[in-house]
């Protein structure tokens, strides 16, 4: 939900609650005032009539004015105090139906006569007040909402503009472009602070990234070069006359150097993958790449005596980094060959949605998901670096593929889903 709609919703909710409570208080106040005023009026009418009679006005002349009704009571009867009644009565003309009617009566002993003076009046009913109030409150709410709508438009267009452009800048920020975020000058102090912070942060991120990248590149160069030298010298040494014992040492050195070199390269590739140095922005014909890889591995599969079947849909094109796809395929296929059993089987299946590579193999000693972790090997003593699957999973992440590794009935199955 957008910030501005969230604010608006909150504002509407609060306004509604305030209007409801306010309406209730208003209703109570109006009701109280109306009643009090009406009662006071009746009271005045009754007492005024009594006064007029006392001053000698004839009873007939004061009756019927202000709905006054005068009855004569027995003089011996006790004087009645004010009696107030709140009832419903017919409001003339009849067609209007019943209405709220309040009445007041009192008896007065004036001279030697005893008069019972009563009067009544029609006042507004509570539900009529509620109706009127709700109507006006709704109109008020409507006006408020209208203002709010216009206001939120203005706010999101004008006030939140720097915030929105900052958001856009963050979205478009790319480490590989090596450009720090450039944000327009904001007049709101919070946004200015935010922009400053973002600019500084992006510069720092770029700097850190550059340092990390430099480190990995330097490390690569610095380690690869001595390895190259060792290899070169070993090759030179091999050209000299050596005996069998020396040869066995050299062979061991060569294996170790090879392994060191493989581990170093794999780790650096992983670092670069994690640094997102490769973008999956090319059309890659994965069918072609897969076929090439299978041709390259064909002999290895044959020599291992493995049964092999493939079902490859032609011309499957995905968005990816071409070299990374090659590495992924090569790693997956060589894994399927390496971790196979005698007289085993390999199955490769490709369609526009996914790649599935299956192979027979021994039961995994660790949960299959664990094998994506670095240096995690099913068989710790095996000669592989234990980085192959980490690289594959990292490549999948970079190219927005999902990968799943499952095992059942002696078959290891890896499924890579594109998008």
């Amino acid at each position, binding site marked *: 939900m957008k910030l501005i709609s969230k604010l608006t919703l909150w504002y509407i909710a609060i306004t509604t609650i305030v209007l409801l409570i306010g309406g209730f208080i208003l209703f109570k106040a109006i009701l109280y005032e109306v009643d009090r005023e009406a009662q006071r009026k009746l009271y005045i009418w009754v007492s005024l009539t009594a006064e007029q009679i006392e001053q000698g006005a004839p009873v007939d002349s004061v009756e019927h004015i202000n709905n006054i009704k005068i009855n004569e009571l027995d003089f011996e009867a006790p004087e009645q105090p004010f009696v107030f009644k709140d009832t419903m009565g017919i409001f003339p003309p009849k067609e209007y139906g019943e209405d709220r009617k309040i009445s007041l009566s009192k008896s007065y002993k004036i001279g030697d006569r005893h008069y019972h003076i009563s009067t009544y009046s029609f006042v507004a009913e509570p539900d009529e007040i509620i109706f009127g109030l709700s109507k006006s409150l709704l109109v008020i709410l409507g006006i408020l909402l209208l203002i709010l709508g216009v206001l939120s438009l203005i706010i999101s267009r004008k006030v939140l503009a720097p915030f929105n452009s900052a958001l856009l800048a963050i979205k478009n920020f790319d480490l590989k472009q090596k450009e720090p975020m450039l944000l327009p000058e904001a007049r709101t102090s919070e946004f200015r602070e935010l922009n400053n912070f973002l600019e500084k942060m992006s510069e720092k991120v770029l700097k850190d990234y550059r340092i990390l990248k430099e480190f990995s590149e330097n490390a690569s160069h610095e380690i690869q070069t001595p*390895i190259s030298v060792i290899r*070169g010298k070993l*090759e030179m040494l091999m050209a000299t006359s050596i005996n069998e014992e020396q040869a066995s040492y050299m062979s061991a050195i060569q294996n170790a150097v090879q392994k060191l070199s493989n581990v170093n390269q794999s780790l650096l590739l992983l670092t*670069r993958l994690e640094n997102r140095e490769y973008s999956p922005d090319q059309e890659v014909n994965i069918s072609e790449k897969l076929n090439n890889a299978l041709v*390259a591995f064909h*002999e290895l599969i044959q020599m291992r005596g493995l049964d092999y079947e493939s079902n490859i849909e032609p011309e499957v094109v995905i968005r990816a980094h071409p070299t990374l796809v090659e590495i992924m395929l090569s790693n997956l296929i060589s894994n399927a060959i390496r971790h196979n059993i005698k007289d085993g089987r390999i199955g490769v299946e490709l369609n526009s949605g996914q790649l599935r590579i299956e192979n027979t193999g021994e039961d995994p000693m660790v949960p299959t998901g664990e094998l994506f972790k670095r240096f995690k090997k099913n068989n710790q003593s095996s000669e592989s670096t234990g980085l192959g699957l980490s690289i594959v999973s990292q490549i999948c992440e970079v190219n927005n593929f999902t990968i799943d590794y499952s095992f059942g009935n002696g078959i290891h199955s890896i499924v890579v889903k594109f998008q």
Partner: protein
Amino acid sequence: MEDYLYERLLLGILLTSKLLQKQHAYCKSMKVLIVEDQQDLNDDIKHYLQSEGYICEVSLNYNDAEDKLLSFSYDCVILDIMLPDGNGLDLLRLIKKGKMDCSVLVVSAKNALDDKLDGLNLGADDYITKPFHLSELNARIKAIFRRRNLEGHSITKIENIEIDTEKMEVRVEGSLLDLTRKEYELLLYFVTNKNRVISRQSVAEHLWGDYTDNLDNFDFVYQHVKNLRKKISKAGGADCIETVYGLGYKMNSSVS
């Protein structure tokens, strides 16, 4: 006046040396410039290639390489991309822009995936990743020369085995030998590096490429070599592939 004479003299020397370079090309002694900042590695490459009969010159940095490229002509440049004072790809651009008639073999770290594409797009003849085996480097250079036909002929003869690199055919005593693609590559690799010990790793890497853990491919190397030897000796060819104590292989031959 003196300055002018001096300048003329320098120009004269330059032109003469250029002419001499050209002549080198005619007399089949390939001239190779090695641009690599690591002294040891540089020495190894130079040593190895010299014993292959190439004339090698060495540059340890960008500027020196630039000077040498502008002043002399080479048949092949082995170009490391990461140099202390510049990017090797710029040298490649210079070579292409100046239409210099030399092949370029680009060398870079294995992880610089994009360097490979950039290098080949810029017109490099081949690409090799560090760390490499010298025998592999040698094979790549020979392959480049073969493609450019600089050595003049496409048939290499070793004992009674004839390899026609143009038709990709092998003949023993004149009759065609039926080899698989890998066996052919293997044989060519041995011939390219004849009279040297070639490690099993380098063979594995040559046959199966970069991105596999090569250690467990040794059985396959062994298998391939065995098959190749069997096929050659069955056809009556000389058995010149020797196993060197499990360390590697060596093709013994008197050159012809």
